[in-house]
Each structure stands twice: as C-alpha cells, then as structure tokens.
C-alpha cells in the first residue's frame, strides 16, 4: 500500500464538549490511483485532508505515505486548496518555482522545472503575469504546476474546482485526466460533486456525515475517460448509487 489511513479519529473541543468530526477512517491507496472522497458539506472532508497534509494531527490513528508516518507538512505531498493560494506578489513563474526555491534547488534548474510544469498546465505564455491577471481556472492550474514541480508522491486536492463555472470545470476535468495519465501521479481529491468524482476517479470513498465515516468504497470502471462517457448507462448507475448514498446520510444527519 502506498498511502494508508488507519483508524483515524479527529475531534475538536467545543463549548458543548468534544465534537467528533472524523470517526474511524480507514483507507488504503495504491500508487497511481485517482481517489475521490465524496461527502456532503460539513462531513469533515477538509479536516481529513488536513490530517493527510500534516497541517493538523489526528486525535488518534495515523496516516502513512510510502510507509512513513505523517507528523508534519512536507513536500512529499502537494496540496491544492479550496481557495486560491497563489502568492500575489510573485509572477506565475515565480509562484511555480517557489516550492523548489524553498527546497534549495539552484535557480537555473528550478526555472527549467517550473517552466516545464507551466507548459504541462498550458500557461507558458502567462509566465510573467501576476496572479490577479488570471481567471479562476488558470489560478488553480498554476497552483497545480507549483505543487507538481517538486514531484510529490501524492497530490491532495480540496474541492479544487468548486468555484469554477461548468465549462471551465469540464476543461479542468479533461486536463486532470490527461495529467494523471501522462504523469501516473497518485491523486487524492475531495469533492461534493458526484459527477465530477465518477468522471475522474478510479475509486471513490463515499463519506457519511456527523461524524464523518467511510460509508462505502466504490471502484469505478468506465469504458473510456472522455465526455461521451457521461451518456453511458454505467456512468448514470454510478452517479445514482452515490447520490442515493449521500441522500441517505443526509437524512440520517437531520434525524
């Protein structure tokens, strides 16, 4: 197993006692997989990702990547946040190479690497632009290039396309599929968009709410990965199954 989450619990102290946000999460992910975790808002998705990223420590349980226990943030995991996190005073190229700069890579080499990943995300011509000159989708692509430049073991994504319009979202989906196929990187992505999950993932964890638990693990086997597949019956079946799962949990949570 490449990435493992074992018996992970997370609770926060609140005025009315402990709030259990994540309860007994177990996941195991192989190298090169594209995993989506789907859950309703408030089901603890961001919290889970923060434990994997090492930004926060689990109350109990552990996360391991390549056998190593995660205790702190590090460059072996790239992360794309729900909100745009480019450094506004740096150009697109400087943003893309910032991780390598922090890691002490010599200027010439990091320039080359960052430029390569800017070309991967299709933004070579914007290398000198400032983040404020970019659209939302372009910003997320720069963030992806920045994360990929230091060649992390896993790419963690927290609802990265949540703020995008449907067309930009679709082109980002196409981009993610081709990126995943070209680089064979392991991706762990969080979303509440069921169709997005079915389209992108090769395996989905459906999360239940309050507290967040893994309700079901679904392996996705689609005949192809392009937009035509969205008309396939099998795509609809996956989607309906997931929708039904999330709906049940929504009902449980309100009861």
């Amino acid at each position: 197993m490449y990435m493992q989450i074992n018996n992970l619990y997370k609770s926060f102290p609140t005025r009315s006692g402990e709030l259990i946000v994540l309860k007994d999460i177990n996941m195991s992910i192989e190298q090169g997989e594209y995993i989506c975790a789907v859950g309703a808002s408030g089901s603890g998705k961001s919290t889970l990702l923060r434990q994997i990223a090492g930004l926060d420590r689990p109350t109990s349980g552990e996360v391991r990547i390549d056998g190593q226990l995660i205790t702190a943030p590090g460059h072996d995991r790239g992360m794309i946040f729900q909100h745009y996190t480019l450094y506004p005073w740096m150009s697109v190229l400087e943003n893309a190479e910032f991780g390598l700069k922090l890691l002490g890579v010599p200027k010439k080499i990091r320039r080359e690497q960052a430029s390569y990943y800017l070309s991967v995300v299709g933004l070579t011509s914007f290398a000198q632009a400032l983040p404020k000159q970019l659209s939302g989708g372009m910003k997320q692509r720069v963030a992806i290039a920045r994360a990929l430049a230091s060649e992390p073991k896993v790419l963690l994504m927290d609802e990265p396309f949540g703020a995008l319009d449907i067309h930009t979202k679709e082109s980002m989906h196409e981009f993610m599929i081709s990126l995943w196929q070209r680089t064979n990187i392991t991706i762990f992505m969080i979303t509440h968009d069921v169709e997005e999950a079915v389209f992108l993932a090769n395996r989905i964890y459906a999360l239940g709410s309050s507290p967040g638990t893994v309700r079901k693990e679904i392996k996705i086997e689609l005949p192809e990965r392009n937009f035509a597949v969205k008309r396939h019956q099998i795509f609809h079946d996956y989607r309906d199954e997931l929708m039904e799962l999330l709906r049940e949990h929504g009902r449980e949570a309100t009861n």
Partner: protein
Amino acid sequence: MSTEPKSIRQFIRPKTVNHSVFWQIAEDIPPRLNTVLTITSIALPFLIWWAVSSFAQIDAKFLPSPSQVIEAFGRLWNSGELQKDTIASLWRVGVGALFVALFSIPVGILMGSFASIRALLEPIFGLVRYMPAPAFIPLLILYLGIGEEPKIMLIFIGVFFFNSLMVMDTVKFVPKELIESTYILGGNKASALFQVIVPYVIPGILDACRINLAAAWQLVIVSELIAATEGLGRRISVAGRFLRTDEIFVGLIVIGVIGLSFDLFFQAMIRFSCKWASQKR
C-alpha cells in the same frame, strides 16, 4: 374574512437609483471633474481667506492677508531662519520616525505572527497608547534633560505604539492558507515569516507608516515646547508670543506642505513598489 387577501406587492415601495455623476457610490468620477474638484479643494479656502482679509477690514494681527504672509515668508527665508527651523524640525521628525520604523515594524510583525508575543505585548501597548504623549514631557525632561533626546523620545512614544499595533493588524490579514501552502511546499517557519508574511505586508506597513508620519509631524510642534531654540513649532510659539500672526501662518503652511509631500511620496512609493497590491489592473 371581510377584507380581500392582500398581496405583498401592495406594500412594496421600491427605491429608485437616479443617475448622477457627482453622487456615485463606489464609482470613479470622470478625470476632468476630478481635476476640477482637486483644484477647488485647495483654491477655494485660499480664495475665501484672500477675500475675507482684503474686504472685511480685519486687523492684520488677527488675520493677515495672503500677501502679508508671503512677505513674512520672504523675510524669514532671506534671514535664513526659515531654512534653519525647517531643517531642525525635519531632523527631529526624521530621526524619530526612523527609530519608530526600526523598532515598530519588527515588533508589529512578531506580534501579528505569533499569538504568544501578541499576548505578551498587546495589553501594555494598548494601555500606553491611550496615554497622551505630551503628558510625558515632565518625565522626559527629568530623565533626558532638555536637548534633542527628549524631543525625539516624545515623537517615539507618541507614534511607536500606534504603528506597532497597525503593523500587527496588517500581518493578521495574511491568509492562513498562504502560510500553510508554504509549509506544504517545503518551507519552515522562517521561510513563512521572511518569504511570505513580510512581502505580503509591505504595502500595509508602508501605509501604516504614512499615516503615522502625520502623527509624528503633529508631535514635533509639541516637542519643540521643550526648550527648543529653533524649529517650526518653536517659530510658531515665539510668533504667537509677539503676536506675529503672519509668521504663524508661514509656519503652519510650511508644516502642511512638507507633511503633504511626505504623504504623496509614500503613496507613490506604494504604487510603484507594490503593483501587485493595487486594486486596478
């Protein structure tokens, strides 16, 4: 029911937004109107001053006319007193502001970045900030004598605490996610502090310094009440004692113009050095 069921529409009184160039909320005005209004802003008070002083038969000891003030300006300039006063005041404000910047910027950044330092310093800063700096004059004379030290210290006391707290506030606005991304990209706390927080807050810090420089100018007048032999503030109090109202006006105008030039200089610096921070593209 006796009355007809009423529709909510009967109660709705819609407000209309009428089109006006002058009264537009959160919109720019045309550049020509802007120029006209800027000129009016300066010219109108001057015009009123000129009209009142020349037509209302007011004693020059009470309100000198613009030409009398210009005359006084020439007199003070030719005798070299004005230059000496200006340099003395500029020096005090400059040295005071430099010390303030030197100490308050690092302290403010530390307070904004670390909750521990904030908890340690914010209460005492918040308290001292409300003590009027001029009230420290007796103590300053007692501790530091009557040379330049107490004058510069007065400016320091009056501005340092405000500036530290304002710098702290700009640091608190750094999005947490920018700092967390830095850790994930492989940075440590030092990189987050020096490579992310500091560049992010530079425009905010320059702006805080710009605002507090105005306060420093206010205090130079007060500081020169401490046994000064020269300085614009000193000039004004001496002129007041001998009822040379025209010289009071010269002092006030020179202080205002110098202050305004500093302000414009800082604004230009922020605009040119931090293009990324400006709202417009």
